């Protein structure tokens, strides 16, 4: 069973449906006991870093996620959920993340040239920087769907894929059993399904 963490942000319907499509059982939950009992955790999210980080901390779910990750349970962060796994987020100030992957979340405006639209919305391709079990069913150059204005920086050692948008932006990162995708696998058609399938098989 996969726990999809519900902390009141984002569209969880598609994520749950896409997991059902690949035959994976998932439960949308904010119950710490349920999260601890599941064998995998997905941290989704759309919205602002500060608000989401606070909700996770105040509900006690941040502690559970950190504990389960430390115990070796596979964890996947998606979009904002991925950004929350880093040390700090610099979105309207400086905010603490979960610290599961070293690095900081910074505005893409810091690194992309003028003339590029923000947010980075649409289908862009993956360049692999490291071999990862998350990519066992897909290949370099496959397209995935992005919607974001911030990206994971200062994390070279954990980047497993980048995407080019005027600069090379972190598309996916991993630290042991902790994985993060900046893009939305649940909105990335067949390629996204294959990434979720690989996660379910970890």
């Amino acid at each position, binding site marked *: 069973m996969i726990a999809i963490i519900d902390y009141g942000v984002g569209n969880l*319907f598609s994520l749950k*449906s896409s997991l*059902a*499509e690949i035959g994976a059982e998932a439960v949308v939950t904010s119950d710490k006991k349920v999260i601890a009992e599941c064998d995998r955790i997905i941290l989704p999210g759309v*919205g602002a870093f500060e608000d989401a980080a606070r909700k996770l901390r105040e509900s006690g779910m941040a502690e559970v996620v950190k504990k389960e990750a430390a115990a070796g349970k596979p964890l996947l962060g998606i979009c904002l959920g991925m950004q929350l796994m880093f040390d700090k987020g610099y979105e309207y100030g400086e905010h603490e993340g979960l610290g599961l992957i070293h690095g900081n979340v910074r505005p893409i405006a810091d690194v992309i040239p003028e003339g590029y639209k923000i947010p980075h919305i*649409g289908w862009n391709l993956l360049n692999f920087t490291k071999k990862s079990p998350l990519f066992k069913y897909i290949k370099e150059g496959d397209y995935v769907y992005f919607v974001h204005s911030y990206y994971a920086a200062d994390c070279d050692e954990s980047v497993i894929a980048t995407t080019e948008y005027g600069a090379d932006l972190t598309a996916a990162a991993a630290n042991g059993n902790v994985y993060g995708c900046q893009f939305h696998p649940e909105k990335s058609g067949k390629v996204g399904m294959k990434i979720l399938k690989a996660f379910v098989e970890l």
Partner: protein
Amino acid sequence: MITKRIIPCLDVRDGRVVKGVNFENIGDVASPVDMAKKYTEAGADELVFYDITASAEGRKLFTEILTETASNVFIPLTVGGGISSIADFDRVLKCGADKVSVNSGAIRNPGIITEAAKLYGDQCVVLSCDIKRVGGEFRVFSRGGRDDTGMEAIEWIKRCVGMGAGEVVVNSIDTDGVKTGFDIELLDLVCKAVSVPVIASGGAGSIDHFIELFRRIPTIDAGLAASIFHFDEVSISDLKDAMAAEGIPVRRIK
């Protein structure tokens, strides 16, 4: 490199997809869920669903169709039609929509853009506008292209983007349904005026019209069309092959 998006649009009334010419003579086409699946298989980058029903019964059918589509199709879904409150946003987002487009609802109450952007993020709020030339200027029309609001289009779009609209769908009433090509003049003006993604709508009749659009306006992000896809006049995979051959970045399904 980010790709140019091709977006089929499905106008849904009483649970069926329909497409009219110049917003009139609406004719029945097919099941929205089947069409959504077919387009996704063919390589559509996103789908737009417009609810053009007025009745509560029709709205309920629409919500059911949306839920069924979102359970089967895993590409971004934008929903519009009759969105005039946060409750409307909430209703369609819960059924699996990723973005919500506002048109007449924003004309009646522009504050809904800011309110929705704060709650769901800018990326969730799409401004859709129907625009027509009136006396030498571009005017915003409301109620599915029926009423002239008297507002100048470019100013209106800039204002909405300033309030939090994360994308803009520009539908030219002058070119809609007549299949003589996109409204390049209007779209170019919009692209120069705002820095958020712009989606061209109205006028596509052939593959060449899409090529012309992306060639003449390199900053445009997406092309939207309905009838040419619905009636198999243009296949999405042929269109993408042709775009790739012209050097326009596209995502192709192998």
